[in-house]
């Protein structure tokens, strides 16, 4: 019988570092710099928000993990809006440019 071992792909320490970095950006709200670019797009109805974080550090992070990292960072720094967020998406700048959502 074959033996198949499936390890959890994410490194918990790296995960925390990503959450820390985005939470720091949410706190500082810097205008310039190499950190994550956070776009909060207010929706027309209901005060809901789509959050896109454009950051080249995402390159080695599975796309499935990025939204959860963003939500964890918001939970820490912007808990007031957490229930308003309906979309959380992390993209590298190349990915964002290719999808036409880098503005």
């Amino acid at each position: 019988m074959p033996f198949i071992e499936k390890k959890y792909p994410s490194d918990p320490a790296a995960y925390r570092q990503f959450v820390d970095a985005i939470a720091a950006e949410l706190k500082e709200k810097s205008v310039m710099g190499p950190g994550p670019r956070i776009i909060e797009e207010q929706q027309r109805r209901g005060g809901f928000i789509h959050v896109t974080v454009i950051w080249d550090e995402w390159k080695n992070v599975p796309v499935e993990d990025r939204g959860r990292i963003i939500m964890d960072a918001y939970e820490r720094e912007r808990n007031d809006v957490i229930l308003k967020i309906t979309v959380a998406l992390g993209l590298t700048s190349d990915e964002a440019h290719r999808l036409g959502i880098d503005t």
Partner: protein
Amino acid sequence: MITDGGTMSLRARLSTVETCGSFRTAAEERFWDGFALATECGDRRMGAIYLFGYVAEILLKAAFYRAIGLADTAPVGLGAIRAHASWQGRNFHDIRALALLLVDHRRQTGAPFDPAFAGLLAMHAATVDANWNESLRYREISASDAEVVEVYRSVEWIRDNAHVL
């Protein structure tokens, strides 16, 4: 004259009623049609992308109709999309807008997606949209292997998750 379909022509055999169930069946058929083109020798990649785009469109529409409470056998129509207050599409083939309509509708009816899941849905819809629109049929253009793989992966994600959309 070819009469494999019996005495009626193909168009005559088409049901005049579209339903969520028929949408999902059609999406599955178009998915495998696209897959056959994508894996065929010769440059049939554009045809594959053309069909894959419709698979995404049909599955998102079926998900929306189900989200507004229509049964599998109930007739569906574009009026429900057009009339929805959250609809912002440029036309009814707008894949991004269909995905965001679904996200918005689910949120407003108290059954929201997890935002991280909604992010994946938005990303895969945007990926299809970046490579496809319905007017491709009029265009003379070739698609690369990378493009067909990119569209295939996103449509496959939508298809794999169609039961929870």
